[in-house]
Every structure is written in structure tokens, then in C-alpha cells.
């Protein structure tokens, strides 16, 4: 992964296969946030977590330092729900799929960054998916303006934050998470902006996968 001063900061950067132990891994950076995602699967799973009709999806979110807290558990749940939607888990009954996300640097839109990293790691692992997923974050500042891809400071000061996840085949919404207070029109505007943002991410996915398979 190379990053020089001329690199367009709004475009994500990623690299595959930095970790050798997981079945799929990626280091992904978007805006000022960076995460490493690793996917293990299909793997053996504890009997109490085993589902007989589909694979069980587990997510772990590791913060930069220390043990995962309550906020990280919330991230885990969000990412797990999204991954469950995207995966064809019925193809892997009685087994498990683990998605591990290690936060490297946090500078706003960390959930979006983690979801997109998880998607790339799943692509790298070769686990069957129904569609690709892309997340985008949008903020409503105190003056009522919407900010796409906010920084950490903007996110802290914001009146409301929106996270939307879209799928690639028909562009439907997979997940929507909001915090704070906002009007319905503002929600709809944010949705439109995030949809445009997600289109960029899908383009990016295509570019990296083309690069991965064409260099051979």
C-alpha cells in the first residue's frame, strides 16, 4: 500500500493478503480511517453456535488498544448483520464464518470503513456472496448542512450521523443506522448523498478485483 501526498484522499486505498493466516484479508483505508480485516471460513464452530441450516457468522471488532468495549460490541453487531445479509450462508451449514476487524487508525466514518473492509476481505476469501456491499457515512452539522465522508471532529460535533449500506445488484438499502435528531427531508437527502458515495466504492471494488485477477 503506497500513499503519497498526491493521492486523492477521498478515494479508498487497499491491499490484499497482508495477513497469511486468515483465508481472506485486506488492509483498507478510507478518508482518515484505516482498518485491517481478516476472514476465516468456512471453519469448525462450537456446537452451541452451530446452525444446521446455515453457517453462523461471527464478527470481532478490535480497537486500537485495550479490550473491546460496549461501543465496539455495537459495531460488531452492525457489521455481523450486514455480512449475514450479503453472504450465502445456506451454502455452509454446520460451519462458521469469522470476520475480524482490527482498527488501525480512526478518523471518522469508522463503521463505513469497517463494512467496506469486511466486504473486500470476504471477496478475497472466496466465500459465496449474494452481492457486494458498500457503506457510506453522512453528517448533519449544527447549521443543518450535510457533510459526506465526515472527519472525526465533524462527526463529534454533528447534530445527526447517518450510515447507509447498499448492495451492488439492484442498489437496494441493506442497512441504515442513524444517531441524533433530523427531519425526514434531511434523511432522504442524506440517503441520496450516501447512495452516490456508495457508487464510488463499488467502482473501487471493481478496480481492485480487476487488478487482482489481471496481473496473473
Amino acid at each position, binding site marked *: 500500500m503506497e500513499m503519497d501526498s498526491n493521492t486523492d484522499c477521498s478515494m479508498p486505498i487497499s491491499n490484499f493478503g497482508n495477513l497469511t493466516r486468515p483465508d481472506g484479508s485486506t488492509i483498507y483505508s478510507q478518508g482518515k480511517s484505516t482498518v485491517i480485516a481478516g476472514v476465516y471460513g468456512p471453519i469448525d464452530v462450537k456446537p452451541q453456535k452451530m446452525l444446521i441450516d446455515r453457517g453462523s457468522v461471527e464478527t470481532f471488532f478490535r480497537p486500537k488498544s485495550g479490550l473491546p468495549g460496549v461501543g465496539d460490541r455495537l459495531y460488531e453487531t452492525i457489521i455481523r448483520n450486514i455480512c449475514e445479509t450479503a453472504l450465502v450462508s445456506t451454502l455452509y451449514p454446520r460451519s*462458521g464464518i469469522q470476520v475480524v476487524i482490527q482498527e488501525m487508525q480512526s478518523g471518522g466514518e469508522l463503521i463505513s470503513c469497517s463494512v467496506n473492509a469486511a466486504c473486500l476481505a470476504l471477496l478475497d476469501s472466496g466465500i459465496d456472496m449474494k452481492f457486494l456491499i458498500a457503506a457510506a457515512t453522512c453528517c448533519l452539522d449544527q447549521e443543518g448542512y450535510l457533510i459526506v465522508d465526515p472527519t472525526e471532529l465533524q462527526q463529534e460535533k454533528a447534530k445527526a450521523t447517518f450510515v447507509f449500506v447498499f448492495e451492488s445488484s439492484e442498489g437496494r438499502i441493506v442497512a441504515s443506522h442513524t444517531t441524533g435528531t433530523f427531519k425526514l427531508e434531511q434523511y432522504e437527502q442524506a440517503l441520496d448523498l450516501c447512495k452516490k458515495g456508495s457508487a464510488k466504492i463499488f467502482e473501487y471494488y471493481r478496480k481492485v478485483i480487476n487488478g487482482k485477477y489481471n496481473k496473473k
Partner: protein
Amino acid sequence: MVVNVGDVVLPGECLPEPRSNKGVVILGPGLRRSEDDSKGLTVSRAGVLCHKAPNMYWVEGHAKRYVPCKGDLVVGVVAKKSGDQFKIDIGSAEHASLSAFSFEGATKKQKPDLQVGDVVYAKLVTAHREMEPELVCVNKYFKAANLGPLSNQGFLLNLDSRLIVRLLDVQHPLLAVLAKTCAYEIAIGMNGKVFVMGRTSKDTMHVAEALLAAQHHDNVTT
């Protein structure tokens, strides 16, 4: 998004009109039937879409994890021993089972002496995602036919699945070239595990190093 044969494809893209033979299309890994029949096939893995006339389609991607497939020859490590059953680690989600009676000449009194950690070369007789994979070390005439426990003098490697496929191609020169410099035995498992044993440990390491290095070389051979 609509794709064609030979394209790099991503999950969620569709192939609307696959060529069928009397209404039958054979799907390989990475493809599924769409929920909505008008869309034809849906891609479920990233890779290159391949087609073999008249009606076979698959996606050639790259996965590290081994998914058992019936009839595959695999190299596995004994993980557990319980009575007449061995549990073998073949790198898949679940350990495979191997009966102590499915070795050449094995009877209730005369069973193979396998310990945890030993390496075996075996064939998958059942591989279904709903069930535990099952291995045997005999062919259909109950003869060993090169299957069975492997010596504990050798070396076990984990190689990339793409290199495995290349090594199994009889045209591939690597094994023949190595054989000119040293004598060795090799058991190549479809699960990515490869057992190598040379006449001396120096020979063994020589071959192992060569195989590990070959992983980083391209498919192009001259």
C-alpha cells in the same frame, strides 16, 4: 450488471442467457441460479468467468480454504484417535473421519498403527456440506494403491491451491526437473497439503524449498 465469458466478475452480477444443452446448464463453483428466473445465473464469487462447450460454466477464483470434493486425493494429519475411527485434519471446516478398517489388509486384530500427528494419503469417498467428510486408504479392489500412512521421515508443506493444480498436470516440468538433481517421493493432496521425502534430509529440504519458491512464480512455463 450483465457479464460475458472471460470477464472478471463480482458477486451479484448476472449472466442472463447461459447456453444450455436440452435445457440443462452445468454450474461449477461461484455461480448460482437467480431467484428471479429471467435473470439466468448470478455470480457469487470474484474471479474470471469460464465456459466449456456446450453448457458448463464456473468462476475461476482463488480461495485458500479447502472445500472437500468427492473423489479428491488428499494429504491429512491424524488429529484424534478414538477406537476404530481416526479424525483427520485435511484443512476443511470439519475433520474428516477415517475408519481403521479401510486400510489394505486391516482386520479387527490387525489395525494400522497410526498416532496423533501422523500423515496419511487418502481418498475422499463422501464429501457433502451437510455431513462429515469420509476418507479411505484403499481403492475399489481393497488394495492400497499408494494410499495409506506416510513415512514420518518426510516433510509436510502447505501450498497454494493454484500450484497444486499445476503440479498435478503431467506436462508441468517442475517435478521432473527436481528429480534430475535428487531422488524424492512426493504426495500431493488437493487440499493444499504436500508431503515430500527425499533420500536424505538435505534432499527433502531442497525439494520443499523449490516448491515454496514455485508458489511465487506465474503460471507461464516454457
